[in-house]
């Protein structure tokens, strides 16, 4: 080998050994920066705020698309506060059930810098946010081509559906219409009648019926202001991105790198009003000063943060981690700032409901939060055996089956003890939740269950028409072994009553097909709140939402006239005593009728690294990153301590290989001689 080659090989080996020296997945130069490292379980499908409807995507869009209203970061129950709007709008009755809301936007708000703004004038990189940008986004939700999943929610705005129809008609009938710039198409279609831009910063919405929950939707990215320039410019043509991959918003962060299959980088947006105008002391731009005693105990009301302008981070980095084990191991090495707890490591991390001594010694914290959701088993109320057609007999059967389910045991076995046993559809933290309420049919009582079964005409679980145990089917949309094992728990519980329940595990598509055809008896489902209002849970059992008839989310097809009537009386009321009274009556109906066997409100456990500050777990998608902070120095020191490479096994392996092979070669050659 020539000296030149040898030196090249040496350099290559040195480079390789350098590369081999570290398990740090980030460039060393980033160690001292205030970067928040997070993982996503998969790439976002879309970051178009009109379309994106998953918690994964909202983690990003909530930071990029600031909304007119926001939730207070610390207060619970969740409380709305102004964001880009100056104040929370009050409903104004227009008579005939019509209601108007007027939003007033702050003046001087700027979009993030982006080349798309050159469409509005050469050299422009940003512009002021106007009420028309919110109206534009609402028109996008109405646009059939956008396929927004929340169109029906906003259909209460007068003229919303008409606008959709006109737009579709014009695109079909008029040649060249579909090629017009998007804002011109909307203009030609006449806009939405109930959406009135009253000035550069005033937007009025007229609803055809009262809908107080509307305000919650203005705290979600669906309704964030979007510049028409971005939608028009990012069309996927001539090397430009698609708008769904190139968000342009008013939030505290902007996307600077979008390699959605492995890395997404957000950096501080210097145009954000909190940075441009700290003197406004806007509630969404300063760290809160009020919270609960628990918040104070958790260090969330640290005087060094209270009232300070946001954000604290320079950058947020998301890495895609599809597999949970590598993700969790990287968290343990200090390369992610927070993590859930994977099933495989639960016993190592948690001891008797608290952090294990090993984890606590690393300085980690455990945050627990009950999610605003409900998981349940449901009966198809159209079924002749378990549903309404069976009358009293069916009701007693459902009651008996409910009494056979031991939710505490289910929780112990399948959720590592996490979760709050659900007594009704309404989870903690939502108006109408009563911590003292005990649903008599949500308690294990096999004796009473057998009595009820006997009263229903199924003595010992025997169907008198066949002389055999009553045969029922539990339809699953997941054929995995794990799902079968989980749901076998309920089958075994009902077997104690003498019932013969069979698991019909199919693919998700086949299951959905059964639901559409109404060909199912028992199923398992869950619901996560869109917004913190009991209406968002109780509508899941409202008759007109029945899935088999209308395709709505009432998969149980529950249709009780009294419930339907009470629901209508409850849904638009303020959170007053009368509303609480109605909710109690609604829950009383569900208690007796048992269209659902409520199981759990899930409880999330999060592990937080010692250098991450101001983390308050939230079940709703909130723009939390602007409140969080990292101590980069402490992180770098701990990472270095936790990740010192162990190199001796490499040498040992090399020596062992030589020791194994060399004597053999020598013997062979000697024998050959």
């Amino acid at each position, binding site marked *: 080998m020539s000296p030149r080659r040898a030196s090249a090989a040496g350099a290559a080996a040195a480079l390789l050994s350098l590369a081999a020296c570290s398990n740090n997945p980030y460039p060393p130069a980033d160690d001292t920066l205030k970067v928040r490292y997070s993982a996503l379980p998969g*790439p976002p499908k879309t970051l178009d705020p009109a379309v994106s*409807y*998953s918690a994964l995507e909202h983690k990003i869009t909530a930071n990029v698309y600031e909304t007119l209203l926001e939730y207070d970061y610390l207060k619970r129950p969740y409380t709305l506060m102004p964001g880009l709007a100056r104040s929370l709008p009050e409903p104004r009755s227009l008579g005939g059930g019509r209601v108007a809301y007027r939003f007033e936007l702050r003046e001087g708000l700027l979009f993030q810098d982006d080349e798309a703004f050159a469409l509005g004038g050469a050299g422009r990189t940003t512009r002021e946010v106007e009420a028309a940008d919110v109206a534009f986004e609402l028109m996008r939700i109405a646009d059939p081509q956008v396929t927004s*999943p929340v169109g029906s929610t906003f259909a209460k705005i007068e003229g919303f559906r008409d606008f959709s129809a006109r737009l579709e008609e014009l695109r079909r009938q008029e040649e060249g219409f579909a090629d017009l710039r998007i804002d011109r198409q909307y203009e030609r279609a006449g806009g939405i009648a109930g959406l009135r831009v009253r000035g550069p910063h005033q937007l009025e919405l007229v609803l055809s019926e009262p809908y107080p929950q509307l305000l919650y939707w203005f705290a979600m990215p669906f309704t964030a202001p979007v510049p028409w320039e971005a939608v028009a410019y990012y069309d996927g043509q001539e090397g430009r991105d698609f708008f769904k991959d190139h968000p342009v918003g008013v939030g505290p962060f902007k996307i600077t790198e979008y390699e959605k299959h492995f890395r997404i980088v957000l950096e501080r947006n210097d145009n954000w009003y909190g940075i441009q105008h700290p003197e406004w002391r806007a509630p969404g731009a300063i760290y809160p000063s009020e919270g609960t005693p628990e918040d104070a105990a958790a260090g969330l009301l640290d005087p060094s943060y209270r009232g300070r302008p946001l954000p604290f981070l320079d950058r947020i980095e998301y*890495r895609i981690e*599809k597999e949970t*084990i590598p993700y969790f191991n990287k968290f343990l090495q200090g390369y992610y700032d927070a993590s859930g707890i994977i099933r495989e490591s639960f016993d190592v991390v948690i001891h008797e409901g608290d952090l294990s001594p090993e984890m606590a010694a690393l300085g980690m914290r455990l945050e627990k939060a009950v999610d605003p959701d409900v998981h349940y088993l449901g009966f198809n109320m159209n079924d002749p055996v378990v549903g309404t057609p069976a009358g009293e007999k069916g009701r007693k059967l459902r009651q008996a089956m409910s009494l056979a389910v031991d939710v505490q045991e289910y929780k112990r076995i399948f959720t590592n003890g996490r979760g709050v046993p659900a007594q009704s559809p309404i989870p903690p933290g939502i108006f109408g939740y009563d911590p003292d309420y005990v649903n008599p049919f949500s308690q294990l009582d096999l004796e009473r269950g057998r009595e009820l079964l006997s009263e229903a005409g199924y003595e010992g679980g025997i169907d008198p028409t066949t002389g055999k145990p009553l045969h029922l089917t539990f339809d699953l949309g997941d054929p995995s072994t794990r799902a079968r094992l989980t749901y076998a728990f309920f089958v075994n519980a009902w077997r104690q009553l003498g019932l013969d329940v069979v698991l019909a595990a199919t693919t998700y598509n086949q299951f959905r097909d059964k639901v559409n055809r109404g060909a199912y008896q028992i199923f398992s489902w869950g619901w996560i709140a869109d917004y913190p209002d009991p209406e968002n849970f109780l509508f899941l059992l409202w008759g007109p939402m029945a899935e088999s008839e209308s395709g709505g989310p009432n998969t149980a097809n529950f249709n009780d006239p009294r419930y339907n009537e009470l629901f209508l009386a409850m849904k638009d009321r303020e959170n007053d005593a009368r509303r609480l009274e109605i909710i109690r009556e609604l829950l009383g109906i569900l208690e007796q009728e048992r269209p659902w066997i409520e199981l759990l409100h899930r409880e999330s456990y999060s592990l937080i690294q010692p250098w991450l500050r101001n983390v308050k777990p939230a079940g709703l998608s909130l723009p939390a990153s602007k409140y969080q902070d990292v101590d980069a120095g402490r992180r770098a020191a701990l990472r270095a301590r936790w990740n010192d490479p162990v190199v001796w096994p490499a040498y040992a392996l090399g020596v062992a290989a030589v020791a194994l092979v060399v004597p*053999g070669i020598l013997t062979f050659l000697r024998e050959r001689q």
Partner: protein
Amino acid sequence: MLAYVIRRLAYGFVTVLGVLLLLFVLFFLYATPVEMARRAVGEKAPPEVLQQWVANHGYDKPRLWNAESPSDTLLFEHFRRMLTFDFGRSDADDTPIVDHLRQRVGPSLVLTIPLFVIGLGVSISASLFVAYFRETYIDRTGVVLAVLGMSISILLYIIGGQYLIGKLLRWFPISGFDPAPAMIARFMALPLLIGLFSGLGESVRFYRTVFIEETSRDYVRTARAKGCGDGRIMARHVLRNAMIPILTRVVVAIPFLFIGSLLLESFFGIPGLGSMTVDAIHGNDFAVLRVMVFIGALFFILGQIATDVSYTLADPRVRLE
């Protein structure tokens, strides 16, 4: 040979048509478009939004026959798109599938090409080595290790390798990807090592058998009698004469380098075509799956033809007629 290649291509075309028909049956008759829409738009989407998605993606056409316009059917559209390589858009995220292929073939090749080249080099060298020392304890240990290696699931290699090398020894990142020149070697080291080790047992055992068969032939004894050195015999004579079985394995594998590695890419977070296929399976992205199966079939047919042609290059006695 040209006539042979043209004939094989014609057979291949017929096979591709069969694959396309099978794909249509599997993907269009198995899942309803509404369910695909539900996966794409979200579980909470109301029925009218699902219908709109179906219409926007052209899945509302008649499946097999349209009396008014015979070409306006899903079947015709499926064949037309695939045969003209107009793959359309992903069902999951609406991105043109060609863009997906373009973006994700690079990360796949970053993994598969070194894995293929190094793997081939190491396994042939190791096989020549154990074949040379046949019936010594080196050979027997090699065979035992090879059988042991090929008996272990690649999943165990991956999880064990990540745990041992990434977590306990902390030599390389456990997973991840960064195309920056300063970072790429760091991320690729562990998947390459694991990919190499997991495939080594099976390859060494196969090549060893081939080489041992060759080393017992007369020409080897003759070469040795003429004073030819052992290294020269193994490298120049045995290896060259063993090329036909080697080519049978190797050439057909080359096109599949572009498709990537399903498991390695998924577990190591490498955003290649393999992990794209796994994502498409999990996410019911049938548009992407159809394309990947179609490309897989095409590559297989092309690989077979290339293998036949390569025989003539390796062995002048082979004639393709």
